[in-house]
């Protein structure tokens, strides 16, 4: 359960919102406050006013796996293995457990062949996959993905989706510009000018967006 009360932070203004769904897609125009909402929910930013509770706790007390849109900004280590191993190492897990976790996380995302590669030689999409493996390596309770699929082809984006679905995370908050992807979520939040303009099932939300380019292309063709 995600509970947001009287949240006001930068342009985001959400008086009261309770979300009880696993796969939550956050959609809306550039600059509508999606990333700000995700940052507050991840604990990266403390809200200026109001509270966010995830699984009954403040975000900073929840194990969050965060993947940003620009993995270049968050990748810290020069070798893929070390990048994925960073969280278990920082948490003081044993070398053997770290190694097992790294290999399992890499296999789940499909980057086992890249473990010895230098991060600087990876393509943009491969970096996103490595960032996803690093975010998932220590069993996050909540996955937060900020337009990760922006730089991924359909096959790789599908791989990300399957990896996240298979995880044990209670919530997946996924900001995307792919409406065909958002259409498969359990719940959609459509943000505009900092407020949640519409929320509900894909059918409910997209019914209100039929006249806009946010309506999924596949739905438009099949109509």
């Amino acid at each position, binding site marked *: 359960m995600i509970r947001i009360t009287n949240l006001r932070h930068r342009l985001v203004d959400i008086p009261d919102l309770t979300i009880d769904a696993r796969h939550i897609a956050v959609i809306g125009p*550039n600059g509508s406050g999606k990333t700000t909402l995700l940052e507050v929910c991840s604990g990266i930013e403390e809200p200026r006013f109001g509270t966010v509770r995830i699984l009954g706790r403040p975000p900073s007390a929840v194990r969050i796996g965060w993947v940003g849109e620009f993995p270049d900004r968050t990748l810290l280590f020069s070798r893929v293995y070390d990048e994925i191993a960073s969280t278990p190492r920082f948490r003081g897990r044993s070398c053997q457990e770290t190694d097992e976790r790294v290999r399992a996380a890499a296999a789940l995302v499909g980057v086992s062949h890249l473990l010895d590669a230098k991060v600087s030689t990876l393509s943009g999409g491969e970096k996103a996959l490595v960032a996803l493996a690093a975010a998932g390596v220590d069993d996050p309770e909540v996955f937060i993905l900020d337009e990760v699929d922006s730089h991924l082809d*359909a096959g790789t984006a599908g791989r990300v989706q399957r990896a996240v679905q298979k995880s044990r995370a209670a919530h997946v908050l996924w900001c995307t510009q792919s409406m065909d992807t958002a259409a498969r979520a359990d719940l959609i939040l459509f943000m505009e000018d900092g407020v949640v303009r519409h929320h509900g099932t894909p059918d409910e939300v997209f019914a209100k967006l039929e006249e806009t380019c946010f309506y999924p292309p596949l739905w438009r063709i099949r109509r």
Partner: protein
Amino acid sequence: MRIDLEDLLFSRDQFSLRGSGTFNEGVHLVSGPVGSGKSTLALLLAEILQPVSGAARRHGISSALLLLQYPEYHITSSTIAEEVKSWGLDPDVLLTQVDLPGRANDDPFHLSRGELKRLILACMIMRNPDLLMLDEPFSSLDCAAKQWACKMIERRSKGITIIFSHERAVLPRVDAIWEMEGGALKALGSVPEAISRWQHAPPYLTYALEMGARPENIRLQDVREAICRIQG
């Protein structure tokens, strides 16, 4: 004006890229999965990387620009107005065009993800180079901004435009389609003939083809028109 790829070969570690064919004037779409070599091909065509053997030979091209996937790499100035001036363009005119009025004195890094991409893309298109290479021009953009970018691209009346993209929802009208797979570049030919050969076609296009529709181009509107034609 054209670029001839003459048995182009590039390799680095275990990855190698091969390509032959000609990029004539018009809009080309190079699609393919992540890591297939699209960005590497863009760097080779931009002459930032050198091939191991073969060549990408330019004919009649006197100016070229490459839009990088991550637009922050293009920033050279501390204000948006200075950034636009560094392209030799008038900030007032350009900022109106990209719908960023009143932002002239802001730091370019304070723009949202999509806004920065829009700004740099507009600067490049306004420079009107003979050869314009766009590496993932639609990533980070919302659907309205993607439609705006498509219109900007379609407005280029001459020169070679090469779009390297995996975009699956909003695409411009293109003249030719290419596919990259595991480092191998394949020319699918001119549109519309190339459409049925396109492995990485967006879902709406694949769906229409399966219904028996024959769209004239790859945009959603072309596909809707084609479906209307078969449904009467």
